[in-house]
């Protein structure tokens, strides 16, 4: 039997129901909460109000508070309706059902109740003062991401500075990337053997930066194959990649004055399925036995299947991916591997264009800043001086 009151004892019931009468013990009403603050939830797209309060003094272990009920009204004198509750020990609540521009008022009640077998035998509560008005609204900037914003501006500034420096004629040094130095040799080998060159641009679609980086390299490799009159085959996993790769290869052939040598069938679709694609590539490798294979893009579990098959037919293999988990497989199975950022640097490396080389220098300066932050953070946090890693945390 339920008796809910605001600090009152239950009235006696019908004598026939005497056995089920529950008397609320004295002194169980908790002290009400104080200092309720209702404000617009910051850094959101509106529709939420954030409530905080000072917990009831009775909110202790074994105390008189079991939960807090939150009631809301859109006018101070209007009817307050319960919109949620939180367990004892908590002193905050997010009201996610507000309408922007509407003023709301809140009451928080501290509730003490006794339950038996899931049924509430009695409950008492004490109400707080009315808090409000509070109004929700959307913000134009998420200040929780200010560190990402500053980092983005910083790195973009570095890159733009070095691009303009390169355009003004400044010589920029770029270290050798072994994999890219061997592109000429790989294509030359295929030409001498009269065999094909295969280019695998990964299994992700055009919305992945690795695929775009891979297609940029495809353009450079296709120029070489056009010059050497070697057949380059580009089996792809996604239709949009097929369209883009076809245009890239066609443009590459036109650039070296061999538009007639381009054949649309050089770039063809296989399947969207990961292992179906791997099976098809393996079949092509075993039947056509290319002399050179390039893997440039995003790869997953199928990487080792393709790379090992390529290795078994004796092809020279050059791989590059931004998937750290697949790099060990490519390192083990391929002759040259572009590790991580080398994939994104490859297009600049091959073209030697000042603007592209400038962007690499900017990237390197960003890496230097991160390195300094790592060393500084290591020292500061090891000696418990300052938690530098907090400045780099991201809230999504």
């Amino acid at each position, binding site marked *: 039997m339920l008796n809910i009151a605001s600090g009152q004892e239950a009235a006696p019931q019908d004598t026939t129901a005497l056995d089920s009468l529950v008397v609320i013990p004295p002194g169980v009403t908790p002290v009400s909460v104080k200092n309720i603050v209702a404000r617009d939830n910051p850094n959101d797209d509106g529709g939420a109000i954030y409530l905080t309060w000072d917990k009831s003094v009775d909110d202790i272990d074994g105390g008189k508070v079991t939960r807090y009920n939150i009631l809301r009204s859109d006018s101070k004198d209007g009817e307050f309706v319960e919109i949620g509750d939180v367990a004892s020990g908590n002193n905050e609540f997010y009201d996610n059902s507000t309408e922007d521009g509407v003023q709301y008022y809140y009451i928080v009640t501290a509730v003490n109740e006794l339950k038996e077998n899931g049924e509430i035998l009695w409950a008492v509560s004490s109400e707080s003062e009315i808090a409000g008005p509070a109004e929700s609204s959307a913000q134009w900037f998420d200040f929780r991401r200010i560190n990402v914003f500053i980092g983005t501006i910083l790195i973009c500034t570095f890159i733009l500075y070095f691009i303009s420096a390169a355009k003004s004629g400044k010589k920029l040094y770029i270290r050798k990337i072994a994999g890219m130095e061997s592109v000429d040799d790989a294509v030359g080998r295929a030409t001498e053997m009269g065999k094909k060159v295969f280019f695998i641009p990964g299994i992700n679609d055009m919305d992945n930066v690795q695929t775009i980086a891979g297609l940029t390299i495809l353009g450079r490799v296709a120029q070489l194959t056009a010059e050497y009159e070697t057949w380059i085959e580009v089996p792809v996993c996604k239709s949009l990649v097929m369209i883009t790769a076809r245009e890239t290869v066609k443009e590459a052939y036109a*650039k070296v004055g061999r538009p007639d040598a381009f054949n649309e069938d050089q770039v063809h679709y296989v399947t969207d399925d990961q292992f179906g694609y791997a099976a098809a590539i393996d079949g092509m490798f075993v039947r056509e036995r290319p002399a050179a294979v390039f893997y440039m893009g995003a790869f997953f579990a199928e990487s080792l299947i393709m790379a090992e098959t390529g290795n078994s037919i004796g092809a020279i293999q050059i791989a590059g991916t931004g998937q750290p988990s697949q790099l060990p497989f490519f390192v083990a199975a391929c002759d040259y591997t572009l590790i991580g950022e080398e994939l994104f640097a490859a297009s600049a490396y091959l073209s030697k264009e000042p603007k592209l080389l400038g962007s690499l220098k900017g990237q390197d300066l960003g890496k230097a800043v991160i390195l300094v932050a790592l060393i500084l953070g290591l020292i500061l946090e090891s000696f418990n001086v300052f938690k530098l890693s907090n400045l780099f945390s991201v809230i999504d």
Partner: protein
Amino acid sequence: MAITAIVGIVFVIQYFIPHYPFNNFNAWFSDWFSIIGACAIWLGALNLMKISAVKIYRRKSGWGYPVIIILSFVATVFVGFYEGDSFRDLGTGFDWMYRHVYTPLSSTMFALLAFFVASASYRAFRARNFEATLLLLAAFFVMFGRVPVGDAVAGIFGIPESIMPSRVAVWIMNVINSAGQRAIMIGIALGIVSTSLRIILGIERAHLGGD
């Protein structure tokens, strides 16, 4: 190029602005891309049929495989359309093809990885120089520590609990391997920022089909 630049800048900005409509851009553009990708699949499918048909017509070497491609494609499309809206339900012909044809084939390809890992490891883990020897030792400790017999053998020799093979394997993976992977990921992240900026500014035009 203008579309790329505008959309690229908008996508960078929307990450920092929770206000409508910026908070919805990510979802809208993802939906649009999925729709375009779904429509574009017909381009790929028709290209596949064309290439296969040409190979069969010209009786090029291995023309039997394109026959299987075309027959499988037509059968799957026919069964799928025949089943109607509920083609993915249990007990349909399409479901049967998925469970008894596609899944075993896919699993077979995935299972090949075990053998390829073994052959790649056999080639890669050779003590040719100092770095290769380090790699060999690390691989040995990780492999030894990942199997129950590792700890069992170590127990026989009375090796302390703190340097049991399984503990060493976990330490190598959690400390050394993680550090290396994180360093690579930092470089990749910077590479992505740089490439994205080049694409937005129009310096890199591979996505448009080249220079």
